[in-house]
């Protein structure tokens, strides 16, 4: 049956057509026994609950309130991941070793992957577009302060900027400084302040 179904003009009703078409596709695939009503939820659930920056945020928030945990996180990121109740495969089962570096008043860290786009996805989720951009990759090594300033992060000349280049063996990420005015906050509240950019070193944590 052609798509000139009465009442539908493709461009004008594109939204309605697409929504209906996907619904039709879903029911067709269910009828054929190819998928069940849970299939897609299971796929999406992986992205929503297993792989995302909420994992990194939890680790950082715990490190902010628990100095012993912080020491363990800095010493062995993958082992520290295992202490939190994360899903299987989070802590380097895929051969990816993560290392976290701490921002201090003296040192600001930023991550990059100059070779490709290695990224600590278990803690930070999917990388932003620009992470793979060749210009970003080249410039962040050559002129990190300028790049940071374009991200809105002004680094005082007295602060050392360190650039960490990830590889297939080690994926770096950043433990940002806990912002002022968060003394009374609990872990969940602190975790909510964190963004992937802050844990990449291209943003500061704001309250």
């Amino acid at each position, binding site marked *: *049956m*052609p*798509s000139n*179904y009465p009442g539908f003009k493709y*461009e004008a009703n*594109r*939204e309605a057509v*697409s*929504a*209906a*078409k*996907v*619904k*039709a*596709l*879903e*029911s*067709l*695939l269910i009828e*054929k026994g*190819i*998928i069940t009503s849970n*299939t*897609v*939820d*299971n*796929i*999406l659930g*992986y*992205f*929503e609950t297993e*792989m*995302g*920056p909420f994992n990194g945020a939890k680790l950082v928030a715990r490190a902010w309130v628990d100095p012993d945990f912080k020491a363990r996180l800095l010493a062995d990121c993958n082992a520290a991941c295992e202490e939190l109740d994360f899903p299987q*495969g989070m802590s380097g*089962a*895929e*051969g990816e070793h993560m290392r976290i570096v701490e921002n201090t008043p003296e040192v600001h860290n930023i991550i990059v992957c100059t070779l490709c*786009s290695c990224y600590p*996805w278990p803690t*930070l*989720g*999917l*990388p*932003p*577009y620009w992470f*793979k951009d060749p210009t970003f990759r080249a410039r962040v090594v050559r002129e990190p302060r300028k790049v940071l300033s374009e991200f809105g992060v002004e680094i005082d000349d007295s602060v050392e900027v360190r650039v960490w280049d990830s590889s297939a063996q080690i994926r770096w990420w950043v433990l940002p400084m806990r912002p002022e005015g968060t003394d009374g906050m609990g872990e969940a509240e602190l975790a909510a302040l964190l*963004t*992937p950019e802050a844990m990449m070193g291209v943003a500061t944590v704001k309250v």
Partner: protein
Amino acid sequence: MFTKFEHFAATSLMGNPTEAPPRKDGHLHFDRDWEKMAFGVAIALSKQGYYEWEDFRQTLMATIKEWETTHDLNDPNWDYYQCWLTALETLLIKSGVIAAGELETQLAQLLHCKSSEL
């Protein structure tokens, strides 16, 4: 190396900005519910072996390229998941999961049911 198919599939699309799905703060970003369904179905069926993920990726890239050659680059009608859905339909027919015309028939039935309920 990836042990999770979902992760492999998603990261394989991160190669260039046009082919990568919209993201926000490290998460996939869906504007509409049907986008989630189209995204999930494409991954699920490849995971189940109905087609190779690379075939989906190539079909998606071809669909995007076709849009780009027939539209202005700043055309506000550009829509990533419209291309995704077109690519999915194309590949489902090509790999024999559904027959040509089958989806339209289903769609017509669905719409017919709805309109008769009104």
